[in-house]
């Protein structure tokens, strides 16, 4: 697909939105792009979140965010035009190192992740403050979804397809590992490999989304929809579906609310999913 192809596609999308959503916010191109980005990112967050919550990896994905932050700092320091590629490479390596050490070492997972997470964020902050130019990076802390560009949306589409494919291939094995490692091994699953593929996927998604969502809240976006879905579902299909629906719903509501309230989009989305989490918590007993 060429760049003109992408542009045509985006124009189509733009016309489509203008027709079906005759609201003031839907008139702006940045809102249309952001909406498209949300429709691509949030299902992935809902999907990956299910296994992050099931595997008790909330702290881990938080550390991945820190790794991505450091990656962006490294990319900027070595002077890449788009530090995002350095960031993706760094967070993949970072994620794989934590996964391997977590599997080989007998120290508690919390401790290992804590050590790496703190080192990563400290290194990132040191690199970014070199020469006193920290302010230009502060957007990575909060994120700016409205700044998303058409070429970035193109990358998102690619990531979306790859994640859906990998998820179909590794999901069964991943769930086995999540239920019980010994059970998975007795069924011939290479548990370390499965975990490494999964953490790589999370690392990539977190890193490319961090510029739009922001380091401070990206983890909530991964964890909240799945945590909410878990309260009200009984099997894997319900769990996945509800988690995706909650993620997409909070994404769209958050985007529109942030437009009218003039607030940070990512944070508004997190607040919506937070509210949904507490509502589902109230229904938990009915789904025991």
């Amino acid at each position: 697909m060429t760049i003109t192809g992408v542009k045509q596609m985006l124009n189509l999308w733009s016309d489509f939105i203008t027709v079906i959503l005759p609201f003031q916010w839907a008139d702006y191109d940045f809102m249309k792009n952001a909406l498209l980005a949300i429709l691509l990112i949030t299902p992935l967050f809902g999907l990956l979140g299910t296994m992050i919550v099931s595997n008790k990896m909330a702290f881990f994905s938080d550390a991945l965010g820190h790794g991505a932050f450091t990656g962006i700092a490294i990319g900027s320091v070595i002077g890449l035009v788009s530090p995002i590629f350095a960031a993706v490479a760094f967070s993949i390596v970072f994620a794989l190192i934590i996964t391997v050490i977590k599997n080989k070492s007998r120290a508690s997972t919390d401790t290992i992740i804590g050590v790496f997470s703190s080192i990563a964020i400290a290194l990132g902050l040191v690199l970014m403050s070199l020469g006193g130019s920290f302010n230009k990076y502060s957007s990575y802390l909060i994120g700016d979804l409205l700044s998303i560009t058409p070429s970035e949306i193109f990358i998102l589409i690619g990531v979306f397809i790859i994640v859906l494919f990998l998820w179909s291939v590794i999901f069964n094995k991943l769930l086995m590992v999540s239920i019980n490692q010994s059970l998975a091994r007795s069924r011939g699953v290479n548990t370390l490999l499965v975990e490494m593929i999964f953490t790589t996927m999370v690392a990539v998604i977190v890193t490319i989304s961090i510029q739009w969502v922001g380091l401070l809240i990206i983890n909530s976006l991964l964890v909240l929809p799945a945590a909410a879905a878990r309260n009200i579902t009984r099997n894997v299909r319900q769990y996945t579906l509800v988690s995706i629906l909650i993620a997409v719903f909070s994404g769209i509501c958050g985007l529109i609310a942030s437009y009218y309230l003039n607030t940070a989009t990512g944070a508004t989305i997190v607040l919506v999913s937070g509210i949904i989490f507490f509502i589902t918590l109230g229904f938990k007993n009915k789904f025991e």
Partner: protein
Amino acid sequence: MKELKEQQLNDVQCSGLCCTKVKNFNVNFGNTKVLENVNLHIHCGELTAIIGPNGGGKSTLLKAMLGDVKHTGQLEYLDGKNKDSGVPVIGYVPQNLSFDSGTPTSVLDLFMVCNSKIPAWLLTTKGIKNKVRESLAMVKAEHLINRRIGALSGGELQRVLLALALDPIPDLLLLDEPVSGIDQNGLEVFYDTVSELRKKYDLSIILVSHDLDLVEKYADRVVLINGTVLCSGTPQEVFNNQITSKIFGMTWFKQRANDHDNNRGEADA
């Protein structure tokens, strides 16, 4: 010990039936030797019970056989013609499956992720459902198919795990203390089911157990392990061995002597 050596010599050939051999297993955790020089010979259709004191390495032996724990030595599976038919299909029922009891995973999901190529989050088919129902019917648990695995009782979970270990039908079934968290009644049901399946499918079963009464009732062979194989043979041979009574203390054996007064003469011979 002399008996033990003779036993091993006799076991070199598989006398026309299929069998599984554990050869020279050694397991170390750091500098601690957990298992040393363990040799076992398991015939098809036999239930071999592994007994021994806590920390004696019973569960570790099963995990080593699964490849879950690093070990030296080999696991060989020979089919009826004494030919090495490679790696046996192993079914494993763990001691207690520790998982998050809040997990939104149904029994059907559990079977799907273990046995199906179709991703369980996407869809399920009638064919898969029927197959899982058949598997569960083997352990009389077909009514549990849509239950959440975290909502099963200890006994129900154990039966589901047994059904899972039997799909596909394994060459070797490893049961690790399937007794924890199950009441006496559930226990007997479980053992009866296992015995029945063993006869039906000619399974080799290795069972790690603490319950000597049940071992005596159901096992064909008993192996006493404490770091290494101390003694093995029929239940009577092992239970009449002095090493066994030393390890398990005299109380149980006195009780047993009273219960089995009439059989004693036979056992000693």
